[in-house]
């Protein structure tokens, strides 16, 4: 996020252009969560499609309410101990003036808080891909509630809140490489180490049921990500937001190509899933770094992230953890790669004058990036694992094995994603005994 522009002479005034831009960016980031739902939903088997979609959608409900009640205050309120914020005026968003500006910026507080809300929504949704097919929906809803409260809100404060320790240390995280992607990836790893593998992992074929849905989701993510990244400068008065916009496109293109070439050499084909995954890996890696690197640097970040993530998604088979849809392989690895590469590729001509190793700046920034990366990774991994453990011991995290095998959609949501039978399969009969039968009997009475 941008350093506050505080020229003593002229304090920032409200900018209609920036305000309009940021409202549009907020809507773009909102669209990423349904996009993610489709990206993940296409990757699971037919029988758990709806559950996968719902694990993302429910975050739009829960996190929004928590954000209004206390989330915004915890993340961006007045700092205490460099660890957490609080501002009682913001509880319930009740004492915020409509024209009150976000401190040091040209947009209202209301605009800033709704933009940040969308980040808080998508971060827990990202975790869900690792937990496919097997988690009780009620346990997931409770997990999100607790996780954003004790992990996301504090970590967002560390990284972006005035007074947060990572912010003050000078860790660069333009749009959420640490707070969003490393945070979600590490949480995913923590949870799956506790809840274990899907029934049949490594034995049964678990290929994606709909790659067109995956491509649709990847497209929506790519589109929405422009709001996520370019919007994180909270305006474009100095052109840095536009640099971020360009680098987002450049790194994503490079990462998609890199992943495709890697897998053509390694596995013999340019796959659709590879293109979608490479694009997302590039988006993740440029998220922290896009304001600091040049467009050529963005190509380097994209290529490195594309190849490393393509290699990382195979690790789960080697080590035996069931990161179902590769949240660790893409978001954790991509986030770490993007955050650390700032230490090498920061050009000094973007968001700040900080230069990385390749631009003559030494390793100073690299060590700062390491501190941010590993603190968030460690905190999120450990706390998420403990949270999953406690939920598992109390209400239980997983659905019964029979339900998992038969399909979590039917067991948890009383629905199935597709009707494959031309004749309707007989489902209509149960409806007839309901409302239709009632209407019929009323007619007879009349």
């Amino acid at each position, binding site marked *: 996020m941008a350093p506050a522009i505080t020229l003593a002479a002229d304090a920032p005034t409200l900018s209609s252009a920036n305000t309009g831009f940021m409202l549009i960016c907020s809507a773009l980031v909102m669209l990423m969560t349904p996009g993610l739902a489709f990206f993940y939903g296409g990757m699971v088997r037919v029988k758990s499609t709806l559950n996968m979609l719902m694990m993302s959608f429910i975050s739009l409900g829960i996190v929004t309410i928590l954000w209004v009640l206390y989330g915004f205050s915890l993340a961006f309120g007045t700092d205490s101990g460099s660890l957490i914020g609080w501002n009682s005026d913001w509880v319930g968003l009740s004492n915020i003036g409509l024209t009150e500006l976000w401190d040091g910026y040209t947009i209202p507080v209301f605009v800033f808080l709704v933009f940040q809300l969308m980040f808080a929504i998508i971060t827990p949704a990202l975790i869900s891909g690792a937990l496919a097919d097997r988690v009780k929906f009620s346990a997931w809803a409770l997990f999100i509630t607790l996780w954003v409260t004790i992990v996301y809100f504090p970590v967002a404060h560390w990284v972006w809140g005035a007074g947060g320790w990572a912010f003050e240390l000078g860790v660069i995280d333009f749009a959420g490489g640490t707070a969003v992607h490393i945070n979600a990836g590490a949480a995913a790893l923590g949870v799956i180490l506790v809840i274990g593998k899907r029934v049949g992992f490594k034995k049964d074929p678990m*290929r*994606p049921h709909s790659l067109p849905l995956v491509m649709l989701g990847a497209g929506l993510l790519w589109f929405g990500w422009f709001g996520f990244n370019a919007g994180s400068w909270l305006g474009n008065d100095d052109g840095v937001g536009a640099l971020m916009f360009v680098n987002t496109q450049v790194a994503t293109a490079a990462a998609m190509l890199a992943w495709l070439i890697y897998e053509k050499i390694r596995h013999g084909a340019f*796959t659709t*899933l590879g293109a979608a995954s490479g694009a997302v890996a590039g988006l993740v890696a440029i998220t922290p770094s896009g304001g600091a690197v040049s467009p050529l640097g963005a190509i380097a970040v994209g290529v490195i992230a594309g190849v490393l993530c*393509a290699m990382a998604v*195979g690790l789960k088979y080697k080590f035996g953890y069931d990161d179902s849809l590769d949240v660790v392989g893409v978001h954790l690895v991509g986030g770490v790669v993007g955050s650390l590469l700032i230490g090498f590729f920061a050009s000094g001509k973007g968001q700040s004058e900080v230069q990385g190793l390749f631009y003559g700046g030494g390793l100073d920034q690299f060590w700062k990036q390491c501190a941010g990366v590993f603190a968030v990774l460690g905190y999120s991994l450990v706390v998420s694992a403990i949270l999953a453990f406690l939920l598992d011991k109390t209400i239980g995290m997983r659905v019964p094995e029979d339900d998992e095998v038969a399909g979590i959609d039917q067991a948890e949501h009383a629905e199935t994603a597709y009707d494959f039978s031309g004749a309707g399969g007989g489902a209509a009969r149960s409806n007839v005994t309901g409302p239709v039968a009632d209407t019929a009997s009323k007619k007879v009475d009349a």
Partner: protein
Amino acid sequence: MKLITAVVKPHRLDEIKEALQAFGVHGLTVTEASGYGRQRGHTEVYRGAEYTVDLVPKIRIEVLAEDDDAEQLIDVIVKAARTGKIGDGKVWSLPVETAVRVRTGERGPDAL
């Protein structure tokens, strides 16, 4: 009467249909099926993980024929279905005791 069943490659369906129509067959039933023979499926790759897909898509065609036409009909189907590559499928026939046209109640060869 005979029931001729052919399990063949899906993309040969149109050729077979045309050949059967030219021969004078008035009706047939087609079902989407899956299975494997000597070709034993194929391999797919998802994020580097290789899956052996051993049940591959097939089309199952069923035709009723009079005893005298059966062998010739089988030849027609085989000729239209053949690509010469592994996985072309199989055709076989079975004796049929009775056939009834539902609309009219006609029985035996009249129902075909």
